[in-house]
């Protein structure tokens, strides 16, 4: 049953919660009790004035009756049910649960999200040798040095008549290797000790960076004015309480260097003036300011008045920067929707794609997304360049001839017959 079709159930729930009799509500809104009964059992579609009257009588927003609880909340609840192996008729009643007990539903949903974060942390920790290249390299170093020492030491111990040249040679080798072993063992201990403090288990470095940028509202007056200043960047990264881990500070530094380069080349004042004249069209602005489109997109994201989101991904499609915007969800873990222009431009450096997008399943907001991919690495003969793709997400302006329906991530995307679908949606069969 579709979500709209459950309007009647929600009316019934609200009425029962308010302790009102069916007949009384019917009289109040001027319809027969039997007609209200049909509505409440979802046997009659309802809309327009009647819906407004009922919502006024029940003292709730009309949307609370038509849409019920947040889709995101419902999908998290379904995920929880799915993972717990819940079966039977209750599986389809997440909506009802969220409607009746919004507080408890929130508790369950946030617990579910926390579990997802913790599971990811545990996965990373259990297979640490595979996930942590630094640790793997340290262990390799330790074992190699230990092998050299063991072999050499047992030659010295076991060989009764060892020529002096060989003996001296082996003594020198053991001395070298034992020092190397001590150094690498200390380095490893330092690494392991520092780790729990610098990497809080609950959040990823990317999340710390986003919190840091959010706190500065994605704008750094200091870098706008002073231009590229390494010490200013270092100061910002060190002083930020949001940047807990070394990894987060590393990422933030890279971001800030990019901001400083962009600010040098295209000051926000110049861009604002150009936006006044030409409107928020990245292509026109790029042509007018004689700047690469990627830079214009990044700079436009730093203008709060445009209310734009920004995503940057590397050649592997991993999202390495995000500025979120309401109505366009980017999954925290797991893969994004491959239909986004962000990914379609990846193989074509220099191409600029502009598309009207609607992300299905949320508030039905539309966005104008402009994406381009640019070469990131220094050029070299016969070398495939490293590219980065940038996508600006602008709230839609005016009508568009064509609209592309996209998702956030397959698991919670309702799009039917999607050629890009990777896994079935948990929303299928109707939330």
């Amino acid at each position, binding site marked *: 049953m579709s979500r709209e079709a459950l309007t009647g159930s929600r009316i019934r729930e609200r009425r029962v919660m308010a302790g009102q009799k069916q007949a009384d509500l019917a009289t109040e809104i001027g319809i027969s009790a039997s007609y209200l009964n049909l509505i409440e059992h979802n046997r009659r579609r309802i809309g327009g004035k009647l819906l407004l009257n009922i919502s006024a009588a029940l003292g709730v927003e009309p949307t609370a009756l038509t849409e019920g609880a947040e889709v995101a909340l419902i999908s998290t609840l379904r995920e929880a049910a799915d993972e717990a192996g819940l079966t039977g008729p209750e599986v389809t009643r997440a909506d009802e649960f969220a409607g009746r007990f919004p507080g408890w539903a929130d508790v369950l949903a946030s617990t579910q999200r926390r579990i997802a974060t913790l599971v990811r942390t545990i996965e990373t920790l259990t297979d640490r040798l595979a996930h942590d290249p630094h640790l793997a390299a340290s262990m390799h170093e330790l074992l190699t040095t230990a092998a050299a*020492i063991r072999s050499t030491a047992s030659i010295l111990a076991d060989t009764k008549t060892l020529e002096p040249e060989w003996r001296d040679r082996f003594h020198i080798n053991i001395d070298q290797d034992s020092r190397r072993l001590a150094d690498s063992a200390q380095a490893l201990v330092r690494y392991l000790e520092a780790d729990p403090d610098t990497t809080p288990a609950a959040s990823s470095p990317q999340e710390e960076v986003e919190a840091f940028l959010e706190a500065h509202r994605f704008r750094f007056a200091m870098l706008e004015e002073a231009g590229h200043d390494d010490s200013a960047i270092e100061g910002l990264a060190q002083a930020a309480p949001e940047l807990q881990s070394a990894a987060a500070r590393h990422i933030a530094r890279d971001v800030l260097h990019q901001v400083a380069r962009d600010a040098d080349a295209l000051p926000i004042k110049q861009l604002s003036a150009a936006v006044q004249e030409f409107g928020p069209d990245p292509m026109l602005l790029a042509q007018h300011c004689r700047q690469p489109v990627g830079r214009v997109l990044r700079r436009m994201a730093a203008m709060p008045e445009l209310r734009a989101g920004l995503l940057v991904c590397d050649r592997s499609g991993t999202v390495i920067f995000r500025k979120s915007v309401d109505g366009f969800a980017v999954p925290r873990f797991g893969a994004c929707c491959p239909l986004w222009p962000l990914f379609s431009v990846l193989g074509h450096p220099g191409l600029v794609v502009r598309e009207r997008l609607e992300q299905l399943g949320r508030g039905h907001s539309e966005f104008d997304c402009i994406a381009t991919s640019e070469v990131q690495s220094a050029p070299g003969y016969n070398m495939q360049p490293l590219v980065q793709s940038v996508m600006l997400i602008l709230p839609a302006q005016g009508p568009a001839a064509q609209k592309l329906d996209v998702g956030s991530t397959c698991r919670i995307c309702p799009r039917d017959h999607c050629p890009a679908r990777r896994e079935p949606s948990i929303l299928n069969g109707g939330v």
Partner: protein
Amino acid sequence: MAKHVVLVEDETNIAEAIRFLLGREGWRVETLANGSTAVDVIRNANPDLVILDVMLPGKSGFEILRDLRADPVFVDLPILMLTARGQARDREMAETAGVSRFMTKPFSNGEMLDAVRALTATTPTTP
């Protein structure tokens, strides 16, 4: 004539210890610290035994192993592999690629010598 072993190992002190141990057993030991030329050197030397490290500059031990096994001349050549990463995956990879024996570092000298003796006991000595 002495039996001939090609040892591909970039850790010089390990290579030195093995060279000493096998030398005392009467082996002629040829050492190489780089993976990229290993296959050519082995092809020219046509040794009785190859000892291969996994992590090598230039070309990994696995690649060298695969290249050698792809050549009909070296299908039965005894190849002993040494690795510091004793993970099951490495061992599996080496076995699929046709390794004769797989050993994890740090190994004991006795173990290594036993392995070498076992591997070469069945091979006919080069005249």
